[in-house]
């Protein structure tokens, strides 16, 4: 189930995506998102579905919640030994799931709430490198996913979790009992992979630290994005191009501390032909970002929803080769592949619109620090 070749290739996916956020941070249970994604049943083919939810572990909010799937007890034991060397494991449990659904086969599913062991001055005999907690988690996830046979970390953020598997998304939601969780951001994905064996780890969302990405499309620039990321220690361990999107957000936003808007310009820069209509300031911004981050440019058709604890963002490729609709109702932001999915759960939104190619739609938690914004996307609908 979790066995996979050394991944030197990628999957190609069609798919449905949807995301719902309360900007006030009000938590709501997973039933709504299941209803919305189920509405787009025909966009997936039963080979993968999944969800990400933020704000679901308030009692463990200072711990990294590692969701791990194991092929067998052996790989679980090996992984736990690995974790014990690096982390304090505060709590460990099986990820609750049902056996009376249409999901008839699944790997071992467990979650660990951990923090890295602090470095003690009296034990200097270790290979030392000054790393942040995030970097330690990042490296450990990379090591387990590439080095431990039959183990796969599919969620590694704080106060958030990813739930996914092989099946239709609504069945996966039922399987994981998502109606029992309450979160302020929910994203979901229904998968239509076109050349895959359909393994549990290959379903969306893809996550790393607090990031989760759901993706409809294919990244035709995958080959160079992957090599660009390798320069910075990211090793694509999965069989899908979506992985590079997560890593690019982690690299640019977290490690390079780029403002979110600059990240968007790097991933989907404006066309050179648009430069004449831009202010000198914005021309410089776009030109410099494109010169330096050309390897991060995402090409090919995509519509994605990217989320972390503070934001939920919808984003399209530059010429909009995949559908994306957004809507607002009170403090709620809805983003989906189809308008019908939004109207199922929010019949009369205050405003509803089709996203522009290459222009992000950003929902932000009102309590989060404000995003620095340029005039770059002025006049185009960016955030609510």
């Amino acid at each position, binding site marked *: 189930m979790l066995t996979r070749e050394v991944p*030197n*290739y*990628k999957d*190609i*996916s*069609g798919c449905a995506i949807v995301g719902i956020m309360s900007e006030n941070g009000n938590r709501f249970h997973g039933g709504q998102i299941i209803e919305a994604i189920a509405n787009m049943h025909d966009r997936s083919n039963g080979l993968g579905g999944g969800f990400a939810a933020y704000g679901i572990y308030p009692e463990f909010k200072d711990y990294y919640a590692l969701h791990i799937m194991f092929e067998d007890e052996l790989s679980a034991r090996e992984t736990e030994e690995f974790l014990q060397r690096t982390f304090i494991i505060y709590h460990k449990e099986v990820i609750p799931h049902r056996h009376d659904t249409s999901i008839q086969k699944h790997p071992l599913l467990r979650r660990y709430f951990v923090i890295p062991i602090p470095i003690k001055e009296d034990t200097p005999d270790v290979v030392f490198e000054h790393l942040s907690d995030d970097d330690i988690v990042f490296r450990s996830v990379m090591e387990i996913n590439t080095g431990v046979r039959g183990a796969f970390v599919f969620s590694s953020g704080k106060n958030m979790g990813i739930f996914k598997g092989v099946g239709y998304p609504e069945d996966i939601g039922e399987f994981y009992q998502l109606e029992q969780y309450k979160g302020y951001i929910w994203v979901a994905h229904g998968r239509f992979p*076109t050349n895959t064996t359909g393994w549990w780890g290959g379903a969306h969302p893809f996550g790393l630290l607090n990031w989760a990405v759901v993706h409809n*499309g*294919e990244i*035709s*620039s*995958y*080959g*160079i994005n*992957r*090599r*660009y990321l*390798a*320069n910075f220690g990211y090793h694509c361990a999965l069989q899908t191009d979506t992985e590079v999107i997560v890593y690019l957000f982690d690299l640019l936003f977290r490690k*390079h*501390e*780029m*403002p979110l*808007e*600059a990240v968007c310009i790097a991933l989907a*820069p404006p*066309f*050179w*032909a648009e430069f004449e209509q831009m202010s000198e*300031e914005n021309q*410089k*911004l776009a030109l*410099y*970002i*494109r*010169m*330096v*981050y*050309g*390897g991060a*440019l995402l*090409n*090919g*058709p995509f519509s994605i929803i990217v989320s972390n604890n503070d934001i939920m963002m919808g984003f399209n490729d*530059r*010429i909009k*080769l995949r559908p994306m609709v957004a809507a607002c109702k009170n403090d709620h932001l809805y983003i989906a592949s189809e308008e019908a999915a939004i109207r199922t759960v929010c019949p009369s939104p205050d405003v509803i619109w089709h996203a522009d190619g290459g222009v992000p739609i950003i929902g932000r938690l009102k309590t989060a620090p*404000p995003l*620095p*914004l*340029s005039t*770059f996307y002025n006049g185009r609908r960016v955030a609510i």
Partner: protein
Amino acid sequence: MRKWLLQPDFIVERDPGKCIKCQVCVKQCANDAHDYDEQLDQVFTESANCVGCHRCATLCPTNSISIKKSSLEFRPNANWTSSVLRNIYHQSETGGMLLASMGNDQDFPIYWDRMLLNASQVTNPSIDPLREPMELKTYLGSKPERLEFDTTGGKLSINTDIPRQLELSIPIMFSAMSYGSISFNASYALARAASECGIFANSGEGGLHPDLRQFGTHMIVQIASGRFGVDTDYLNTAAAIEIKIGQGAKPGIGGHLPGEKVDEQISRTRMIPMGTDALSPAPHHDIYSIEDLAQLIYAIKEATQYQKPISVKIAAVHNVAAIASGSVRAGADIIAIDGFRGGTGAAPTMIRNHVGIPIAFAIAAVDSRLREEGIRNKASIVAAGGIRCSADVVKAIALGADAIYIGTAALVAMGCHLCQKCYTGKCNWGIATQDPILTKRLNPETAVRHLKNLIRAWSLEVKEMLGGMGVNAIESLRGNREHLRGIGLTDRELSILGIKAAGE
């Protein structure tokens, strides 16, 4: 005259029924393959003098001339081939090194023809360049690894400076060909075409003629071991400066422009006395190690106030990846790599035919090495040597090149027929010669038009191929080896190129 052991390469045949004795062939052939006898009123042909440049056949108004490979066959021998025997006959007569021109013409594998490109089907749409933007703009030069942003007051701006770059409308440039090795008209055509196409032409090592300085913003000037024509004005006129360490056609070898080609104009441009041989030593006599290269790079940067990207051109030799990495660490903003198929005005045949490695391997090795060392952003890679068509360009970029240089292809666009006799100085097409009767045959206006057409045609084709792959920016092709598949390659070759086999 005593008869040589050498038999003619070509047989020139004239159809007497078609020949009108207009003597165009006689006037056009600088090699005296045709002769007119007034008393007999007859045109004679001496096949032994024919180099196969097709000038006479092309210009013959009645198409009465045909040129064939000599049918005189040696006894078949896979080891002692006719070219081996002919070389020995030649050397036993002259006692000299064999000379050759243009690129390696031997039967080595052509790796461009062993790689195939990808295209989109169903799951991602191909993009139609006639209807959608298709971006080829390329910037060459050193880039920082990351940008620092300033967000004070909620306003977004960039705190990092980017060193000066070369902006190319399409990632193709004209390779280094010196004034001296080629005629003024040819140099002029390359410079003007580059300027009008938004790309760059490389002056080569022979200085920059005053009349070409108007195109300085689209010129890369070269500093080679002979240092011909180098002064501060030369450096500051150009957009970028290239230190020539080696050349693909003759790695490890210097250059020699014979004194008879050094006329007044070349003498002024190269800053050497008229009629003297222009000798480029094999090494730069101030570069015996990598730290010496760093000194020269920074001396030039100082002389140009850090306003010009510095390129280092090296021949693709066995250890090319390490040499490139060292050059980048020495401060090069651009690494130009010239493969073993790269052309030349003159090189010892044995060197041209047996030294160096294919450019495809060199691109792959250098790109991978710079990435492994985390310094790929510090320099752009320009690949040269045997790039024949736009598909070769796309493959070179997919392997990891930022841009490519074309030399031979540009000469062919101007009329060159690849007779490989540049070293004789008798180019009937007016390109590789300084003979005023021959050079005026190359009409610069026509040559500019042909060069611009070539660049335009290739850019249309590159756009079509990019669109087929489903990408609309050259950045998404550069180094994207997923878009290449090998055919008929060994596992080892595939792994060096970093590509998968067709069907994988």
